[in-house]
């Protein structure tokens, strides 16, 4: 089975400076992989690299066998971390989700666009996240958890091969976390491949197949969630000599910060 995402000795960073490097792992079709790590460990830099927002600075990364730089962007659905969708202007839920279709429209041939097909894709995506009846609602009137699902629907609207999510459950109350987890379970049941950065593994325990841990810009663990060493993987060998860059320079690394691993939170 050929992997959906494959990184071999990959490095990503900003302005030529790697914030995460020597990362090797793969995500197979239908797999749901959680990316854990303290704040500033480089995990966001890594997944942003997979959607072209940070620089690819070494190794090889392929998406469905295509080198990252040449990979078709629509293959990857990106769900960024946003605390609210509160916009400076009014927008309906369907309009926000519709922006997930824009990359497929023809910019210079407006007559060749297919609005009916876009509308269908938007409606399908909203049904998948359980917001099918809220398409015309003002997006800023939705609850925080519903807005997260709008972001997931936006990514789904482009019919991606893999979803990459940055902290989809952060800052969402417990009830809405359950709903979000339910949405992710439904996507998993449909065979959607997902790579999810999270601090809250408990909330997603039923969805996640495998865990990779990034610390100090290195991959320190790759395996099932239940055999993670308690308290993270601090104490394992890793190099500290070359990584004082990127986001780790701005945000101090708090040892074992918030890697929730099956504790009695919920």
């Amino acid at each position, binding site marked *: 089975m050929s992997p959906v995402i494959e990184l071999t000795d990959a490095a990503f960073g900003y302005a030529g400076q790697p914030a995460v490097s020597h990362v090797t792992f793969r995500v197979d079709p239908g797999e749901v992989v959680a990316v854990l790590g303290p704040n500033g460990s480089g995990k966001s830099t890594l997944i942003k690299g997979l959607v*072209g927002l940070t620089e690819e600075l070494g190794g090889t990364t392929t998406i469905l066998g295509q080198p990252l730089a040449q990979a078709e962007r629509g293959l990857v659905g990106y769900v960024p971390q946003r605390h609210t969708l509160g*916009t400076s202007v009014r*927008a309906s839920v369907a309009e926000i989700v519709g922006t997930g279709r824009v*990359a497929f429209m023809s910019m210079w041939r407006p007559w060749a666009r297919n609005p009916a097909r876009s509308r269908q894709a938007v409606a399908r995506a909203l049904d998948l996240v359980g917001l099918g009846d809220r398409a015309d*609602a003002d997006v800023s009137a939705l609850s925080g958890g519903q807005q997260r699902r709008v972001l997931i629907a936006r990514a789904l609207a482009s019919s991606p091969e893999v979803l990459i999510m940055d902290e989809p459950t952060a800052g969402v109350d417990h009830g809405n976390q359950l709903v979000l987890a339910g949405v992710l379970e439904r996507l998993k049941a449909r065979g959607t491949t997902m790579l999810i950065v999270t601090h809250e593994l408990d909330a997603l325990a039923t969805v996640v197949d495998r865990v990779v841990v990034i610390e100090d810009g290195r991959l320190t663990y790759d395996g099932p969630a239940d055999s993670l060493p308690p308290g993270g993987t601090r104490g394992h060998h890793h190099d500290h000599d070359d990584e004082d860059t990127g986001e780790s320079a701005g945000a101090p690394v708090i040892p074992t910060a918030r890697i929730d691993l099956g504790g009695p939170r919920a």
Partner: protein
Amino acid sequence: MLEILDYAFMRNALLAALLIGVAAPLVGIFMVQRRLSLIGDGLGHVALAGVAVGILTSSSPVLTALLTAVAAAVAIEFTRARGGPTSDLALALMFYGGIALGVVLIGISPEGTPANLTAYLFGSITATTTGDLYVFLALTLVVLLVTWALRPWLFAAAQDEEYARAAGMPVTAVNLILSILTAVTVVVSMRVVGLLLISALMVIPNAAAQAIARSFRGAMTFAVGLGLISAVGGVITSFYAETPSGGTIVLLALALFVVVSVIAAWQRRRDAAHARAERHDHEHGPGCGHEAIRHKDHMDYLHDGHRHAAHGGHYDEHAPDEHAPDEHAGDGHAGDEHATGAHARGAHARGAGS
């Protein structure tokens, strides 16, 4: 009433007002969306330097203003894209430099009179010549066509720039195009509205539309309507009241903004008088296990014998006869609770951290 159409200058001014009444709010909504409401103002400042060069060299002020404004638009976009702590100051220097240079150059040119300067800064209905009009017509058509054709990209790039980049959209190019469209709109509007007031026509109709609309498309349509009424109404008023057209247009737009805001506030008060359902973790939706009943433009979900309808982040109690007594005559839920109008406010957590 129609005697104003007997004057050629009024026909020109009205046609120009018609064009900018549509174009200014249409381009403006994307600037408002990008939180750049005041960039149009800065472009107007810089365009005055272009006007002055045109007057001084006895060439077309419209053409030189257009070139200057477009060059400034490109410079602004690159300054902003480069970012850094000084980009805001760099824009301020550009804007003040532009207007100062314009005032001085117009002052030293032989044709530069105070009346001339005032007409450029604040608009004048007598200023639009027939020659200008053809240029404006062509430019406005280009602005309208490009804005309309690119509006999904303009919306997406302004709504969430990072996501737009991740999805592979040419965000830098789209932002640059919007900046240039703004510059062209400023120049097209300078005769009737004036360089110091044009930004108001881009922003105020949109501010009013935001108070009342529920979707981007709705807001855009509403803003264009208000822009048209303000621009055409302002020109007609300025003819009879003998007031400067730019100021009249902007005051009319402001008056419309106040009226719309009052109506919107009244609507919100009325909407607030609804009954909230009890708080529950369960979220209603298609296939949620509760019977869905169509109720006007939305779905009610039958929950323990009463109807819940989504409203913002919470649920309202809806009664079948609340909106239209005859609408649900056949659905036979005699046991439904009736909304009392009391505000049964349930504390509803909205995404605060747990």
